[in-house]
């Protein structure tokens, strides 16, 4: 049965304030509020706003993690203020005070309000964010598989809160990167069987040096997302469709790099680092290293390789001959490949479709 909740407690909120009209730098502002510990950080802020200072700026509306307004950083981590319990937030606070700041990667307008138009929405507009289906429409609905609609409902579940954009490491380095939210939105169309331009969309995103292959796989967006949209997972699925289904050879070399990676692990059970680069550029075989493009890349990465050997991060033997793993382990790896490759369709593990765990035993 529903748990009995604890009585109200005092919590200290330390909010990042910035008044663009003051000419002053941002500063920290503390208020102590009193609420049950399972109430949200947003409710705490609203109490501070209602009782102490109505000028505290934060966007908010639904209080239920569905409108996507209250994206902030709490104790340095991106998320929704309405979706974070006060007691959990206090537990991760460095000195007991819950720190609330505006999201990152976007300019601050006031207090915890950021300019999402300048970054987030601009990037969404970059991916042609509408269904392209110009032909005559059927009398009734399009007949499409049940799974296909559940599948894209995962990206449809994105509430555009910006939490993933806030902490995208690739975007921090390259602000032009299309980024996790917009690319997840792109999957919503690429994965939609009703869309007529899957290939054109993927070509566009692959050719863009700040597109599909600019993601560095850091998982920050997966952790940040309050709605299980799994933006990085969607980016990887875009890559698989681009490479495996549409055979798009992108200027970022992402598809060949991935092929080289997969083949090397299949052959030796572990990545053979010294082979990866030549195969990514020269072609996915032992002869790849003799291709001029591979030679150029190898030459340019020589200093890194030498430093690696000097610092004993790798040995010349491993560099030349790769890693060796026990035979039964290698067989096990090959078995995984065989199982996956034997499937008529590519196996996409999607927890959103398959559910979190198996049915309970009856």
């Amino acid at each position, binding site marked *: 049965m529903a748990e009995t909740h604890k009585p109200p407690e005092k919590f200290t909120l330390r909010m990042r304030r910035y008044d663009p009209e003051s000419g002053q730098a941002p500063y920290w502002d503390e208020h102590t509020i009193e609420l049950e510990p399972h109430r949200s950080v947003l409710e705490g802020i609203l109490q501070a706003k209602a009782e102490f200072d*109505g000028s505290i700026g934060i966007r908010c509306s*639904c209080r239920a993690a569905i409108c996507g307004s209250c994206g902030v950083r709490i104790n340095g981590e991106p998320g929704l203020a309405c979706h974070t319990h006060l007691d959990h937030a206090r537990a991760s606070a460095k000195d007991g005070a819950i720190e609330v700041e505006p999201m990152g990667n976007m300019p601050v307008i006031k207090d915890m309000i950021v300019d999402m138009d300048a970054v987030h929405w601009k990037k969404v507009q970059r991916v042609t964010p509408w*269904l392209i*289906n110009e032909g005559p429409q059927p009398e009734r609905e399009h007949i499409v598989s049940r799974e296909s*609609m559940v599948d894209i409902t995962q990206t*449809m579940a994105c509430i*555009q809160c910006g939490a993933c954009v806030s902490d995208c490491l690739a975007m921090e380095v390259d602000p032009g990167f299309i980024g996790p939210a917009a690319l997840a939105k792109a999957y*919503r169309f690429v994965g939609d069987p*009703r869309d007529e331009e899957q290939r054109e969309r993927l070509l566009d995103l692959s050719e863009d040096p700040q597109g599909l292959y600019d993601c560095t796989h850091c998982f920050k967006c997966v952790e940040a997302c309050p709605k299980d949209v799994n933006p990085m997972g969607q980016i990887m699925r875009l890559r698989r469709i681009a490479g495996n289904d549409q055979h798009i050879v992108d200027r970022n070399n992402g598809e060949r790099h991935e092929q080289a990676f997969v083949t090397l692990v299949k052959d030796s059970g572990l990545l053979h680092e010294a082979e990866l680069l030549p195969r990514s550029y020269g072609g996915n075989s032992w002869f790849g290293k003799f291709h001029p493009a591979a030679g150029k890349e190898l030459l340019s990465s020589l200093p890194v390789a030498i430093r690696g050997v000097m610092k004993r991060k790798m040995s010349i033997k491993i560099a030349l001959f790769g890693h060796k793993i026990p035979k039964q382990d290698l067989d096990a790896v090959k078995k995984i490949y065989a199982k996956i490759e034997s499937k008529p369709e590519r196996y996409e593990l999607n927890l959103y479709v398959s*559910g979190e765990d198996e049915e309970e035993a009856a």
Partner: protein
Amino acid sequence: MPAHDVLIIGAGLAGQRAALAAAEAGSSVGIVSKVHPVRSHSVAAAGGINAAINVADDWKSHAYDTVKGSDFLGDQDAIEIMCSEAPREVMHLEHIGVTFHRNDDGELDLRAFGGASMKRTAYVADITGQAILHVLYEQLMKHHEQVDRYEEWFVTSLLKDDGGRCCGVIARDVRSGRMEVLKAKNVILASGGAGQVYSPTTNALIVTGDGIAQAYRAGAPLMDMEMVQYHPTTLVENGLLITEGARGEGAVLLNSEGERFMEKYAPNKMELASRDVVSRAEQTEILEGRGVGANKDGIYLDITMVPRKRTLEALREIVNIGKDFAGVDITREPIMIRPGQHYIMGGVKTDVNGATSVEGLYAAGEVACVSVHGGNRLGANSLLDTLIFGRRAGEHAAARAASMAMPQVSDAQLHDDVAMIDEIIARPHTGRRVSAIKRELGETMNQYVAVYRDEEGLQTAQGVVARLQEEAKSAYIDDKGTVFNQDVLGAIELGYMLDCAEAIVLAAIERKESRGAQFRTDFPERNDEDWLKHIDISLNGDGPGIGYSPVTFTQWRPEERKY
């Protein structure tokens, strides 16, 4: 000053649908929203959208269910339009990209919903409103050349010309604080309901009755304002919504004795009776001491018999709400709910094209009252209402715009509104805080103007609202700035909410019978002889005046209402 053929206030489903329809008809369109469009409260609509799309279904069956759900107060001409146009609208949504859930044959799947005689609710998990809203916004981005978006602009007044025609609005760019006149041949209000008049409510913080009050102040009558829906399943914790889709999927309601008490109140439809019936049943159980929880003020909603995989797929959002806001895994244990304010059937009185009695002013969606919901709205009819009448208002306004010149507008009202805001900002800290008045209003309404009402309680509420209206005149705020001054907007919203509350209480006092969501313990019977009519509230001098309009009948005569 910017000028548009059609200017839409509010960018939820009704507003965005109106914008797209008007743009398609060739109008130059502007759409103003005080929040970014995808933050609009339509995003929270969970369960689905009704349409008789099953080949075995018939729109007339849908219409009859709606008429019965309305307790025969709905206007049947409007209901016929809504239900007969529903299938085409749902197919249109599918064609522009809404990811409706499919059955195993790849057709739209349908789920059961309250008050419906068959499964006719199309859905996207339990984020149907979000899915439709985001797809409409995709279309707005696609049609950016025809539709100018004023995102995060707050409307302070409607403008009328010397002939009494609506000719634009005064609005404040929230980000810069700049006030501007937006000129228009037609204005469509699509700014949603007034749930924040109540506390608690399932409604978002932005749902403050802006459009209802703006239209009322501009002279348009409000209708059915006494009809305020309490949703049967809102979290005891904080009033958040648990979708009716849960009961549609098979969830049951239990009292403290573990009894499935709906047997007593609605033996045929059980948990899927109409919302007013289920909410009253729950409230009766609570009042008679069979509530659950420490304060015995809740009811258990038990969904554990639905297969976990189905719940996770089709009701994911409420699984999250249970976990995040009540600490309950609803797939494994019951969750404590109770009736909570959810929707307002009443609103600005319109015809079936969304036109109000003020020329050039339209309204669609929850802000409006056509009236398709009458005394009680059926679940999954609200999305339909917004889309059908949003589209019709957009089309009608576009047609009107095609045959007229752009009106001349003076900026006298602009100066008045700038002065109004300056006055609020300058108020000394001697009166009450805006937030304190808002809280008292919400608690008062929820205490006296709720599921069960009586003369004495309603009179008390009326007195409180009148006092709060006085206090609001000197209520102070803290923010003195211009950039994103949410505080000053809150003070203006408080005025809107108080106007709505005044109309709700007055109409509830006036209707001396029990029908739909209005249950008077001092007049517990429905009285068709005297009260089979709408109550209209209009601004009359300084205060509200009462009038009546007839209910339109087409095919269905009033009968006893049983589920």
